[in-house]
Structures are given as C-alpha cells and as structure tokens.
C-alpha cells in the first residue's frame, strides 16, 4: 500500500491540473461552507457536475477539497456572524462568537483553523489504518450480511433523525422504492416506468441529490427571509499565542477521537459529534462556568471533532459501501458516476484509486489549514456577498449541474420536481437525507436480498441461521426501535422530543 500511496503522491505533485483542482476545491468549499444556508452536502451536490469531464482521481481531488473546505468553512460564519455556516459548526459559535466580540476574531478563526487541520489529519490516519481492515472483513461477507448491512445503514439514519424517526423511516422506504424504478438488473423486467422512456433507466441520483440538497435549500432560504448578516469586521491577529496553543493539544485530541467514533457510526451526523465533543470538554474543564464566554477549548474541541469526522465517515463509505452521512452519500454518487462502486472490492481491485483518495484528503486537510490561516480576512469578506445574487446563482448552478449529467433538459425537470418535493417534505417534517440513502442503498439491498433467497431456494430463515446476518438484523431492529420508544416515552411525559444538542449531553 505504501508504494501505491507514494506513487499517488508523486502523480499528484507532477500534475498541475490536480494541484489546481484541489486548490479550487478547498477555496470554493471554504467559501460555500462560510455562507449560512449552504451546507457541505449542498456544496458537494451543486459542484459535483464539475467532475463529469475529469478522471476519477482528479474528481476526488476537487471533491475532497470541497468536502474538507466546506466542513471547516462553517466555523467562519459561526465565529463572525453567530450563525453556523454548516450544521457541524453549530456549537463553535458558542465560544467563537463571544471571543470575536472581545476583539479576538482572528484568534478564534486561528483556533478553529488549526483544530480543523489537526482533527482532519488524525481522522485521515485512522481512515488509512482502519478502512483496509474493515474492507478485508467485508470481503468475507455474503449476500445475507450485505442485506443486513444495507438495512442497518438505513435504520441508523432514520434513528439519527431525532424527533422525526417515524417520518425518517418512511422517507427511507420512499427512497428504496424510487430505487426500484426502471429496469430490474436480475430479470430485465421494467418497473414503474409508466410507459415513459426516461424512467426506464431508473431515477438518476445526481439530479435528485441536487434537487433535495440544493434547490430545496434555496427555497428554504427564500422562505426564511433575505435580511443582511451582521458581520464582525475587525479580525486582528490570526495565530493564537504559543502557550495557549500548547494547552489546546489535549482538547483537540479528545475532540478528534469523538469525531472519528461518531463518523464511523453510519449516519450519526456531524451535529451529534460536535455536541458530544463540546459537552465532554465542558465536563472535563476546571472552569466549566467559563464555557460560552469565549474559551478556546469551546472552539478547538468541536472543530477538531468536525473535521476528524470526515475520516470516520469515509471508513464505512469506502470499505463497505454504506455512506457515513449525507455528504458521503453524495460523494458515493460521484464515484458511481465514475464507474467505481465503493465497498470491499474497491480495496482489492482499485488500490491505486484508494491511494489517490488518501492523498486527496491529505492534500485537502493541509490546503484548508494553509488557506484558512493565510486567507482568514479574505474569507471573512465573503460574508458580504449579497444574498439575492447568491441564491439566484445557486439555483442556476442547480439547473445547469443537472443538465450536465446527460445533457438532458428532462434531468433539470426531475431536479426541479425533487427540489420542490424535498422542500415540501421538510415542511411536513420529513427528513430528506433518508430518501437519498434509500436511493443509494436500494440496489445493494434488493440485489443481495434476492440473491440470498435464490441461493437458499427461497428459505428466509437463512438470515437467522447466519450469526453475523442475525446480528446485523437485530442491530437494525434495535436501532430503528430505540428512538421510537424514546419519542413515545417523552410524549407520554408531555415533553417535546429532544434536539441534537440535548442528545449530545447538555450543550447550552
């Protein structure tokens, strides 16, 4: 593996296009992440069509840059505007903004940047160590285990939708159903095409993702209003004092460990990780009462956790083909377009590509840290972009990005329908992420379910006779049932279902 890694690094350094793509990816990711209302998932979804003309390695250079950059970028608006740019920076504002208000905005940005870089690197090391091992175990899986794994991925995601588990499960079922549209690969029978040629190829994932993550968010932003953001303009020194930095090593390590663990759990989501990291740091602090007033630990722990989670997220995504969260779900879509299916076989048959993914993430982490430190003032100015032009520009990007998939206006129409549908789903309290997960995991689930039954002559008990398959099914059932029971108990007590922050352990 070391040779593949070295070769991938040399190939990267020798290719000016790859270097330029990772730079553009990181810078665009930071800018998009910094803008409130544009999540990392949305950034990746609307920029994904730019990779259509690229080879798989260059596509990863761009997308990993956008991924890592946008996850970090969320902290800029959390600190300077007191609005998290992405859900992962939801607690960074608690201490970041007060510190900025004290005239130490640059320092707050510096802590966030260095912690993001540290967490990102630790996540990368764990990703590089664990992913091949998990893939090795995955190679021993049979069809029943993969059926159980797909089910567990969906169940975890629905369970992560605190307060709307039931609707999350229904959204996942709808996604699985959408995955059955078109030609059945095992029997060549057409399903739900309603006599149209467009639906015979199935529901394309990219226009759907652009619609539900991109356009739906534009519509949400329009509904929320177009008021201006109040930005803190005085940045000051960006590099924090050395003595303070040394004190931040342990909070950064603890935050990163939490982030990696939460990232590995499919669908746990970055908001949960940063909530836990913050709550843990507050519990361990000698002065917990100072949290919320602008202490560096309150920035370092969640920011380290946030970026470390990327490595954790990528472990189930790359080694088992089960997305770690909505961002990696979109990333998986990008790989599928390139003809690469994430899973154990990827590590066996495409070692060079896996090495290129490691390099892409490493480069993205380093560039994010460097650009974050050097360009803090510049990125802060991004928050002055007028909202009308921004929202209209994103809508145009959504339309053109969907068109670029197959050069088809019908795909733009599908994106529009999915965007409006996603917006209405959110209005009715249905989370949209399980829908996309269902669409991605649907083929894996159905193919393995039916293959198992063919091999066992239609005997369903095969799922119960294989220990690992039984374990995965039980875990899926428990994962889906637990939050439903919790919600039921809370309702009986008369309390509203908890928020992510509550679940994370008392973030103020």
């Amino acid at each position, binding site marked *: 593996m070391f040779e593949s890694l070295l070769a991938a690094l040399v190939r990267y350094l020798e290719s000016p296009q790859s270097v330029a793509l990772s730079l553009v990816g990181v810078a665009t990711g930071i800018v998009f992440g910094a803008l409130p209302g544009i999540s990392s998932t949305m950034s990746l979804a609307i920029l994904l*069509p*730019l990779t*259509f*003309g690229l080879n798989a390695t260059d596509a990863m250079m761009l997308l990993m840059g956008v991924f890592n950059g946008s996850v970090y970028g969320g902290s800029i608006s959390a600190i300077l505007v007191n609005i998290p740019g992405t859900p992962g920076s939801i607690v960074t504002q608690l201490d970041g903004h007060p510190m900025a208000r004290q005239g130490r905005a640059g320092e707050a940005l510096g802590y966030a940047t260095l912690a993001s870089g540290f967490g990102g690197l630790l996540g990368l090391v764990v990703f590089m160590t664990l992913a091949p091992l998990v893939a090795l175990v995955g190679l021993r899986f049979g069809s029943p285990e993969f059926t159980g794994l797909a089910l567990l991925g969906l169940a975890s995601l629905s369970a992560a939708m605190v307060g709307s588990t*039931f*609707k999350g*499960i*229904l959204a996942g*079922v*709808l996604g*699985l*159903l959408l995955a*059955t549209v078109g030609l059945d690969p*095992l*029997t060549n*029978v057409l399903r*739900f095409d*309603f006599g149209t040629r467009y639906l015979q190829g199935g529901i394309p994932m990219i226009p759907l993702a652009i619609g539900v993550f991109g*356009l739906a968010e534009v*519509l*949400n932003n*329009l*509904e*929320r209003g*177009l*008021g201006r953001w109040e930005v803190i303009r005085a940045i000051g020194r960006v590099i924090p004092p050395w003595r303070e930095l040394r004190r931040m090593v342990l909070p950064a390590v603890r935050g990163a460990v939490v982030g990696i663990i939460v990232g590995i759990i499919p669908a746990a989501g970055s908001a949960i990780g940063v909530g836990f990291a913050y709550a843990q740091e507050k519990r361990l602090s000698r002065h917990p009462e100072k949290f919320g007033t602008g202490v560096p630990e309150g920035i370092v722990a969640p920011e380290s956790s946030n970026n470390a989670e990327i490595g954790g997220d990528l472990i189930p995504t790359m080694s088992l083909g089960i997305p770690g969260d909505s961002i990696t779900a979109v990333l998986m879509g990008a790989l599928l377009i390139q003809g690469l299916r994430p899973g154990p076989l990827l590590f066996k048959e495409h070692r060079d590509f896996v090495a290129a993914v490691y390099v892409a993430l490493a480069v993205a982490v380093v560039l994010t840290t460097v650009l974050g430190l050097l360009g803090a003032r510049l990125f802060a100015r991004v928050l002055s972009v*007028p*909202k*009308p*032009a921004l*929202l*209209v*520009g994103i*809508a*145009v*990007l959504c*339309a*053109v990005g969907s*068109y*670029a998939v197959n*050069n088809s*206006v019908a795909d*733009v129409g599908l994106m*529009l329908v999915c*965007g*409006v549908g996603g*917006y209405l789903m959110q*209005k*009715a*309290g*249905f989370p949209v992420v399980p829908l996309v997960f269902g669409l991605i995991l649907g083929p894996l*689930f*159905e193919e393995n*379910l*039916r293959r198992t*039954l*063919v091999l*066992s*002559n*239609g005997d369903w008990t095969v799922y119960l006779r294989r220990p690992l398959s039984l374990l995965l099914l039980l875990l899926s059932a428990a994962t889906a049932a637990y939050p439903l029971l919790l919600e039921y108990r809370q309702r009986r007590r008369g309390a509203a279902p908890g928020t992510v922050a509550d679940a994370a352990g008392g973030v103020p």
Partner: protein
Amino acid sequence: MDPGRRALTDLASGGVLLGLAAVGLRALARHPDLVAYDFGADPGPGLLPRLLLWALAAGGGVLLAQGIWTLVRSGRPEVAPGWGRPLVLPALFALSLAGYVAALKPAGFRAATAVFATLWILVLTRQGGDRLSIRAAAGAVAAAAGITAAVYYVFKGFVKVPLP
C-alpha cells in the same frame, strides 16, 4: 407547530403516501411480466416494491389516523392567520424556474439565464428591504451577467457540456 396545522400536515402527507402506494400497487397488479412469469427461487422483481408499497400505505394510514385524532381532540382546526404567506416567494420562484427550464432550449442558455437571474435578483433585492433604484437595477444586471458568464464558461469550457 399549532395542532390545527399539524393535523392538516399529517392528513395531507398521509393522503399523499396512501395515494402513492395505491398507484404503485395498481401498477404492480397490472404488470404483465410480473403476473405471467415464474421466477423460480428468485422472489422476482415484484417482491421488494410490493413490501415497500405496503409499508408506505401503512405509514400513510398511521399519519392519516394521527391527523384525524388530533382534529377530533382539538375540535375545529385553528390555523394561525397568514401561515401560508412565507410560502408565496418559494412557490413563485419554483414556478419561474420551471419557466426558465422550458425556455432553455428555445431561447438558449445565455438569454434565458440572464433574464431569469436579472428579474429574480431585482425581486429578491426588493424583498430584502432595499429600494429599487437605477443603481440597484444596474447592480442586478451586472450580477446576472456575471452569473451567466461564469456558469457558461465553466460548464462549456471546462466541463465541455454542450449548453443549449
């Protein structure tokens, strides 16, 4: 969310899910291949869709029942006045985007995008509380031209997409 609105949301989403399930189950029941062929040990391409459609129908039924229960418990549904007002702008935006998509082929990407972007930047600038002045209009035209040119050259020149 007030109980009246929650009840209506549950009723509407339950109804939509039940409708979807009904359409899907009808399509499966009338599918000539699924009716005619025996797929042997393979449960066939109808198994999973059928299971999922029944699950959707059950979920839709639960939501419908929940909506009716809330209505019965709270008496007449009272929806806060003006609750639909914030939805007008997104609805208009989605409708005009549909018009923009329809105009892409006949008008071409550049003309359709420039018009769509200019109009909406002006509308949103006004919505944001700013007065519409000549300066604002010039700014909207410049921003729209910038968006059109940037997207056109990135996708046409870099991604090699044959934009209409």
